[in-house]
């Protein structure tokens, strides 16, 4: 074969392998029975500001924090309001814990800040570099830091990552897929569509539906299209 045909074939073969790998790491259409867990579950949640943050924190407040521990709240740069709301939730949970068990607060949570993939009203032209910067930051936290560290939680970013939009949560999902492609430990992905979505999915919902391990909606009408998803009543 000539040298030029190698130049064509090599990238094609690489792309083929990449797609093949991607196909194998995509979530199966039927849920597999999870392995029994006795250790606490390191839980990460993305707080996408405004209504997204409120709903995500309502989901978190439903959880038993001794089981879902430690927790990582991921916020977008400049979104101090979401950070404050996360701290408020942790303090509230601590008070309940204290009054029930008289145990000291555990404070086993961290707040992680990542750059936004796209700011509100940002022009289409300047979005790609901003999104790339955001992706690099996510890869740093989700892939590189856990790979290099030998922390007590094991070399994993989190056991589960809860997402409910908007844009930046797709970038987080891409970073998790990088781990999956390399066969590195990666968190399970749970997407919960907003209570506000009755008949149609949000853009992040549409993008993440085939990618996440659990896709949850809060109105059964959304599943009328025959696509994948779980409906368990209202979650907020």
């Amino acid at each position: 074969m000539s040298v030029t045909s190698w130049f064509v074939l090599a990238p094609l073969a690489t792309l083929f392998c990449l797609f093949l790998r991607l196909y194998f790491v995509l979530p199966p259409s039927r849920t597999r029975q999870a392995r029994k867990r006795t250790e606490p579950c390191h839980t990460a949640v993305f707080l996408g500001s405004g209504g997204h943050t409120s709903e995500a924190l309502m989901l978190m407040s439903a959880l038993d924090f001794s089981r879902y521990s430690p927790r990582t709240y991921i916020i977008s740069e400049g979104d101090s309001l979401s950070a404050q709301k996360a701290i408020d939730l942790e303090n509230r949970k601590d008070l309940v814990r204290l009054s029930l068990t008289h145990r000291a607060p555990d404070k086993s949570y961290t707040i992680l800040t990542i750059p936004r993939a796209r700011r509100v009203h940002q022009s289409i032209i300047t979005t790609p570099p901003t999104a790339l910067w955001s992706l690099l930051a996510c890869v740093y936290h989700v892939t590189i830091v856990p790979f290099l560290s030998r922390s007590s939680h094991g070399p994993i970013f989190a056991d589960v990552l809860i997402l409910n939009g908007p844009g930046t949560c797709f970038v987080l999902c891409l970073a998790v897929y990088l781990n999956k492609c390399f066969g590195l430990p990666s968190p399970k992905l749970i997407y919960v569509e907003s209570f506000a979505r009755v008949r149609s999915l949000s853009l992040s919902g549409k993008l993440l539906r085939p990618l996440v391990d659990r896709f949850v909606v809060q109105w059964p009408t959304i599943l009328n299209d025959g696509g994948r998803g779980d409906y368990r009543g209202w979650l907020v």
Partner: protein
Amino acid sequence: MRVLVTVGSTDFDPLVLTVIWQPVLVNLIARGYDKVIIQCGNSAVDFGRPVESGLSFRKDGMDIEVWKFKPTLQEEYSRADLVISHAGSGTILDVLRLGKPLIVIPNPTLLDNHQEELANALSALGHLKASTILDLPETISDLHTSSLTPFPAPDESNFQALLDEEMGFM
């Protein structure tokens, strides 16, 4: 009895104008309401005076108070006997969880108008009344707050059960 009107974090001029419209005020008075508090956000409604520091006036026999924002509306919701609001899901959840009668008016200018979907779905279940700018006087006179279906308290076990299943806590 107090009515709280809220436009949320942006602006919704038509809603602010409608709630100080004579047919609305007359019907509110007929139903026994005597004070309307308006959180107008960034709406550009001309009250003849700057609204920055809040203002109050009387119109068509109704006491009206207007201000732009407060850090939290939770206290205002609990003091209100009726809430008239935009159809944002956050406001809807906050108000219904307090068990307050709620009329929502979806903002028709929003590009991706899923506010209307949510308003109509909850209205069909009887938890609130969905209305429009022009239908508001009629919605108020037809409102029977006791016939509204109470909104269920959050079932915290739902999400925990789903996550337990996924993560292997059995």
